[in-house]
């Protein structure tokens, strides 16, 4: 018994490999699209907080676990390198996120009587994303620190207590 030779595949035929390949490419593209949009929103939130003033990196330190098991309660602290004197102190600290339903996380108002520019709180994170801490100094300059956080169990899921 002889088998017939396999039929030659014509070039424009829709093969499984092609379909999978294009689907993957489309998926990747869609993801890049949404990620870019979310980062834009984050950048917009930061610049509107700074009122258009330049935001430089440095001086601020945002401390948060890089790998978060439970997005419902994530300890976060922001420390700013400042002597906290009457002439040179931190006026405000704000934290923004990239992919929660709302960009704002918390805003703190400090002053020379704070003594130490360090605040701690606990936040919710909906998914793996970027967080930015911004500090406004008494000389009017803005400083920031950006951190990427990987979240394995997200907050805000349905039926969550």
């Amino acid at each position: 018994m002889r088998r017939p030779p396999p039929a030659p595949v014509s070039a424009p035929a829709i093969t499984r490999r092609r379909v999978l390949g294009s689907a993957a490419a489309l998926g990747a593209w869609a993801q890049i699209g949404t990620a870019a949009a979310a980062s834009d929103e984050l950048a917009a939130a930061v610049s509107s907080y700074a009122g258009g003033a330049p935001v430089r990196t440095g001086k601020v330190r945002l401390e948060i676990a890089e790998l978060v098991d439970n997005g419902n309660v994530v300890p976060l602290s922001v420390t700013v390198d400042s002597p906290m004197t009457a002439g040179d102190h931190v006026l405000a600290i704000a934290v923004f996120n990239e992919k929660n339903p709302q960009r704002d996380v918390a805003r703190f108002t400090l002053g020379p009587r704070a003594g130490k520019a360090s605040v701690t709180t606990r936040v919710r994170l909906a998914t793996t994303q970027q967080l930015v801490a911004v500090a406004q100094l008494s000389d009017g300059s803005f400083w920031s620190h950006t951190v990427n956080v990987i979240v394995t169990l997200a907050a805000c899921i349905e039926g969550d207590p």
Partner: protein
Amino acid sequence: MARTLINAPSTARRGDVIEIRTTIAHPMETGFRPGEDGKILPRDIIRRLSCRYNGELVFSAELFSAVAANPYVAFHTVATDSGTLALTWEGDKGFTQTENISLRVAG
């Protein structure tokens, strides 16, 4: 009245930087979460925490839905004079609560 927990020293030396750690029992309902019936639950969060030291505002925090339930906030202040620190939480649905702690400053 929600239960609060405030952790701060009761005595300090003048000029010391003291840490005040606070938490309050509150669900911090985000306003983005559907309930049992599938409808979005209305937002109910603490929006603001402020600390007045002998009447003068030394710290305030504006909180949003992204702050976890039973909001914990820790901050610092310089011990200047003996007196009271009044911590006020304000939130949705007319929530307001004030707790006073006393601080004795020596030296």
